[in-house]
């Protein structure tokens, strides 16, 4: 049975168009190759967009983490015990 013979005569217009399109794709017709190139281009652009968004999300996450660390460091340095330790270390350094 040829490919064309597989097209059922009773198939509606949309169905017939779909099957013709199938044949074009299967046989590598220029229009099918162009459509594939468009598909690949769309996917490549989508990938760039996703990766850009991912990079931005990582940057904000990093900024958030650094901000958190800065706050924590400031808090730790403000603790009396830590300040005392720093003062003692300074005094010892001076006496040496």
């Amino acid at each position, binding site marked *: *049975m040829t*490919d064309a013979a*597989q097209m059922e005569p009773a198939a509606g217009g*949309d169905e017939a168009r*779909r*099957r013709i*399109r*199938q044949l074009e*794709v*299967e*046989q*590598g017709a220029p229009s*099918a*190759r162009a459509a*594939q190139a468009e*598909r*690949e281009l*769309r*996917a*490549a652009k*989508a*990938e760039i967009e*996703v990766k850009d*968004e*991912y990079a931005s*999300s*990582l940057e904000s996450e990093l900024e958030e983490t650094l901000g958190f660390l800065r706050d924590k460091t400031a808090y730790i340095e403000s603790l009396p015990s830590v300040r005392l330790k720093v003062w003692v270390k300074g005094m010892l350094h001076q006496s040496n």
Partner: protein
Amino acid sequence: MKDGGPAPLVQRGSDVPGSPLVSTCILVLSDPTLALGCLDSLAAAGRSDETETIVVANGMSESARRVLEERNDIVLVRSDTNLGFAGGNNLAGEIARGRYLLFVNDDSTVTADCMTQLLATAERDQGIGAVGCRILSADGSLQEAGSALWSDGWAEHVGVGLPAGTRRYSFVRDVDYVSANGLMVTRSAWSAVGGFDERYFPAYYEDVDLCMALRKHGFRVVYEPRARLYHLESQSTTSRYHNFLMTRNRNRFVDKWKVELAALGDRPERIDASAIERSIHRARGSPPRLLMVMDGEVNGARAFLWGAVEALAAVGWAMTVASPAAGDEPDFRPDRSTRADRMADVGVDVRADVDEVLATAGTDWDAAVMATTTRWRRPPIIRADGTEVPIVRLSPEEGDAGVRSAVSTIAGTARHTPPSSPTAVNTGNLRG
């Protein structure tokens, strides 16, 4: 590129049938090893004269693709770029000749009658647009028995993590969505919604979106427990990129479907068994729910009672049968000839763990039937709103008249109206 021009986009194997009923679509990204196992399982499932398998080499290198190029039993489609899950499957869908499209992941294997079971269910009702599998992990534990969705777009696989051999969720039911692994879609439904939405590139949420679109177009999305598929890859991937994609695509999904999602329930703080039960019930259209407890002392009347259950389920009630003996009932058969099959077909949830059934808060039965010769010694069943579930005694020895009377009583106690009056049930059907 080969000598004499570009490599063909499509290579149709000589053993592929020209007019298949089903087109199975598989995407392969890199290593084809797992895909070969998948193809073997499909071949073992038979129906080779009715099935074409379309493999999209979705950005594969030429060397990795070679092993697929040697096969005569597949339609190999080449895309030099990874088109993503939606794009790759849409390409496969364009080439597919079957009346049904079956999407399978390359890291999965289907059981021998998986496709037959999916087809049998898809062909039962023209309103069915998609049928999904019972997805198992490599160790046999349950990975998905349909999936639930909440208004914030959060999705959860029903039954995930239940041990191998569990019979939970062994009934056919309408669901919010089913994953696109072992998902059969009718050609008409696929065309109506235009395939997968490629904006979810590269992956995640395109199956949730597809099912949402199908339901919006009036198609049913159904889970079929007898169609089983093993998903071999671990589900525990929690890489940063994976999480990013999940969140990103969930946000896109919510933006697209905010009106429809508003009709779903709010996600509870903790998704426990009760939350899943509520979600399942909502996805089934919130029919009246009836619990029938059969204890071991009514063995002589069991067939009679099962007939009553089947008849009530057939007129639209969501039936749960809790019977300690249910675990000993014969399981499904490929020809769907067992009672388990008949119950699954009409959506009856058959449970052996009576205590667990009664303990699941929020199930909110409309009524309970105690089909037992002993006195009810359990505490009252209380609904979430604090009201008590009415309990009706059903004595098998009372015969048809007794069943009619009990059914009328049930109908009177139910807080919802079933799709058609259960009193109209031909009591001939109630004889098991």
